[in-house]
């Protein structure tokens, strides 16, 4: 297949500033999401994801402004998520220049919102973000459930069934985060990634746990992910996007 797999750096943004900053050589403002996005754009990132982690009412206007500035500088696809609850949020983000909008908690509380959003704006711009945790014990058949609020609140929803339902409702892509692996740098949950990727007809972005370049390769070859998302390994300059692409290419993965 000649379609390239994608590498997506993710920026966590709080009140218009990138959380934890980044460690690039010669960056003027390590907290400015626009500056960082511009660097990733130049470095060969295939897309950029922007997660507004505050997403309070006050911060929304800041987000729209940031997205608008970013869209004027970055000529690769831009996904924006965090606190998206209304059709009005989606419209504002798309008008500001986002290409895709990611819906997370609101989909769990009100699944019809995904259907409404996809019908209104088209599946191509609706991403459903799924935060999943393994709930089966050692030696049992693996089972994963959907969690909200950063992995604290269980919903009782089976992750595979939920992903299928979301694709059915019109999600054009699934952003899948393993809450067990997020922040651990021990690699994607490959069982989870494979289960979801095989279950849905739409592309799946694997997220949560990347600590080295082999993890990216495993996410694609073993997990079946169409795209891989990572934050810290790129932000802190451990690896460049180019190094990641070369490594993946060397392992037989088609890259841009």
């Amino acid at each position: 297949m000649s379609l390239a797999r994608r590498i997506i750096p993710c920026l966590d943004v709080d009140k218009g500033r990138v959380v934890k900053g980044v460690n690039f050589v010669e960056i003027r403002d390590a907290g400015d999401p626009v500056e960082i996005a511009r660097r990733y754009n130049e470095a060969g990132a295939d897309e950029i994801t922007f997660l507004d982690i505050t997403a309070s009412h006050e911060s929304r206007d800041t987000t729209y402004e940031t997205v608008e500035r970013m869209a004027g500088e970055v000529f690769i696809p831009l996904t924006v998520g965090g606190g998206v609850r209304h059709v009005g949020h989606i419209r504002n983000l798309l008008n500001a220049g986002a290409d895709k909008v990611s819906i997370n908690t609101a989909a769990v509380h009100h699944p019809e919102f995904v259907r409404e959003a996809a019908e209104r704006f088209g599946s191509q711009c609706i991403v459903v973000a799924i935060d999943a945790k393994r709930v089966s014990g050692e030696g049992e058949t693996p089972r994963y459930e959907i969690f909200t609020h950063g992995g604290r609140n269980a919903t009782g929803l089976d992750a595979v069934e939920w992903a299928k339902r979301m694709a059915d409702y019109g999600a054009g892509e699934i952003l899948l985060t393993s809450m067990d692996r997020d922040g651990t740098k021990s690699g994607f949950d490959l069982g989870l990634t494979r289960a979801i990727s095989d279950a849905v007809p739409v592309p799946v972005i694997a997220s949560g746990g990347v600590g080295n370049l082999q993890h990216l390769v495993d996410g694609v070859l073993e997990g079946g992910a169409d795209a891989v998302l990572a934050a810290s390994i790129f932000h802190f300059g451990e690896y460049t996007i180019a190094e990641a692409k070369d490594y993946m290419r060397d392992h037989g993965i088609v890259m841009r």
Partner: protein
Amino acid sequence: MQEVAIIDYGMGNLHSVGKAIERVAPEVRVSITDQYERVRAADRVILPGVGAMRDCMAEIRRLGVDDWVREVVEQKPLLGICVGMQALMAASEENEGTEGIGMLPASVRFFGHDLREDGQRLKVPHMGWNQVFQTAAPALWRDIADGTRFYFVHSYYVEAEGNANLAGRCHYGVDLAAAVAAPNLFAVQFHPEKSHDAGLKLLRNFIDWDGSL
């Protein structure tokens, strides 16, 4: 001052297309408009579009954009992007048949729910960076290497096989038209405004195009 009109019929991210043109052609005035007068006054015109072709066509007809497009192509260059390209075709399979503007005879088809390549299932939408092989309209591909990757996101496609207007070919389970061309008309399935340097280059080439093939 040269002016480019981007037709705003309520379907899509026009901001990005406008910003990309401003980036590659600072000397050009960009107007995002739903007014016939602006389209008529412009030197060249862009027809974008995302989402469902049925919804796009409904708005195109409601505003009379189909008539504007026919007039534009008689006089000056038009660039169709994504569903803006599909809308220029005769018809689409979408929603059990949607009639297009009919500038070109090709039809728009669905990838299907079981798209395969070498026994592997392919995800739909076709989303990401895929290679485009140039077949015609060299002025638009100037300084872009054959086989360069552009960013696609779509579930319907214009057939490449037997397409007399084919200008660029892409393969994803099937051969699809990545670009089509006719005098004063160039249209792409991918998003040049999201395709990094190659996409920006193509937009610059469109600004410089005299409309002839």
